């Protein structure tokens, strides 16, 4: 007979042990990225990485500092954030709406899904000249490009989320006399939420990505402009700095969505990784 003896400490001891020995989660999550940064810096300091190809983290921070001091960074960051936010708000809510319509009714699916799937594959970059034609030169085409880019992940995930809701629960709602809106609010949306949040996370990333393209149209502001200008003028450290800012914002945005996730999905008892 094969036996295993498990001895679990008492709860109090367990918790104090956790306090003393365990590294907090967010620190553990930082270990790898921070180590990568350190290695990079060391390689750069010893000249193993050519400065022309990439600046060292220290150079990047210096560039950051310089642009932060003269205010250019924050201005650019702010305007980009505003654009990303507006585009995301627009694209996200339309995506949610379209996902709901297509997800909830077959008629909606037949009407929307194939059209959206076709549009989805249109490349943004090809659309830039057309967007200028159609929407002019102001903020409109930029925000619309972001909206277009963020629309799809939300749409796809909401649609799929809704179609993944178990028939059993829909039956439940029907037999308890939920009207259409209550069915959506109480059953379909909560069930689709985990998927919708994945869509949101992805949209956040896309919003940034599209901005760089959108801010090429004509702009003297925004991170996208900053990076393009720096590229054309061969300012490697500025390029890398902007990339670093993007990354930071990305991590931040992601952390926010994670927070929403853990709050909104408190009820879940799913696999947490071994």
């Amino acid at each position: 007979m094969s036996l295993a003896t498990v001895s679990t400490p008492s709860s109090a001891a367990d918790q104090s042990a956790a306090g003393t020995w365990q590294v907090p989660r967010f620190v553990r999550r930082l270990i790898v990225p921070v180590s990568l940064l350190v290695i990079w810096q060391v390689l750069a300091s010893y000249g193993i990485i050519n400065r022309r190809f990439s600046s060292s983290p220290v150079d990047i921070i210096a560039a950051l500092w310089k642009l932060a001091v003269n205010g250019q960074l924050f201005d650019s960051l702010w305007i980009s954030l505003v654009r990303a936010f507006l585009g995301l708000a627009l694209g996200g809510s339309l995506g949610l709406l379209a996902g709901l319509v297509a997800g909830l009714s077959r008629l909606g699916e037949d009407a929307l899904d194939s059209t959206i799937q076709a549009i989805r594959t249109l490349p943004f970059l090809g659309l830039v000249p057309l967007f200028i034609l159609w929407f002019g030169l102001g903020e409109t085409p930029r925000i619309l490009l972001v909206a277009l880019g963020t629309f799809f992940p939300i749409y796809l995930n909401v649609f799929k989320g809704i179609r993944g809701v178990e028939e059993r629960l829909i039956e439940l709602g029907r037999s308890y006399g939920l009207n259409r809106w209550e069915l959506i609010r109480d059953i379909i949306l909560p069930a689709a939420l985990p998927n919708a949040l994945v869509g949101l996370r992805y949209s956040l990333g896309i919003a940034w990505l599209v901005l760089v393209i959108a801010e090429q149209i004509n702009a003297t502001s925004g991170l996208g402009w900053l990076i393009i200008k720096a590229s054309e003028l061969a300012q490697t450290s500025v390029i890398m700095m902007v990339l670093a800012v993007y990354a930071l914002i990305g991590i931040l945005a992601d952390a926010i969505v994670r927070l929403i996730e853990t709050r909104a999905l408190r009820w879940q008892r799913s696999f947490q990784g071994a």
Partner: protein
Amino acid sequence: MPNLASSGVALRNVSRTFGTRRVLSDIDLEIGEGEFLVIVGASGCGKSTLLKIIAGLDRGAEGEIRIEENRSIVFQDSRLLPWKLVWENVVLGLRGNRAELRRRALAALDEVNLLARADAWPLTLSGGEAQRVAIARALVRTPKLLLLDEPFAALDALTRLKMQQQVAALVEQHRLTTLFVTHDVDEALLLADRILLVEAGRIARTFDVGLNRPRNRADAGFISLRRELLEGLGVSEEDGFAAAAQPPKQPRQTRPLEVAVAAE
């Protein structure tokens, strides 16, 4: 006996086929207003399918069906919404002031002895607790038609007794029409006005339970009906562990349905 003429629920010549399997055939059924109808039958004979048709949840059924719109249902699985707290699940679909709803939910949960778990997430409930929440959810509203699919299967003897009494009291008080699926012959006899025995997708027999209420297990009428019913289900009253002496495979009273269909 309730008046069948004013009946709320009626099925005429209803059948249900999944793919090529005919699961229900030629069901003719009327449930009188205020009648307590119990369905018994072997596992897989079509009880839940019938219940869902009567609940208007099965669009694939053929035949004529008249359903009651104002109904509550306890499914065979408890079907709690995992993202709503226990008490929120209880008042699902009820409209009104939140505090008032909570009050009603707590009262219903108290009835099923689950007051303490009112603010728990459904996924942390035990099997019997989840089933009790589902019962509370059905009982917190007063529907015309109450559909219960093996509602007490996961409950211990005491809780089960209590729940049986509660359902009986409620049904009597509000004159609810009730359709009740169970495997427990005693339960059926204690509660039913009429018992349908379903076999391989057909109503094989109907028992009118003419016993006075409250009913007593020791009653002669009870005992003889019990024997009849058990026989209908293929079990002799004496079947105990003695049966273990027989060869393990018994003649199949619960024939797979294919056989029945092929025989047609």
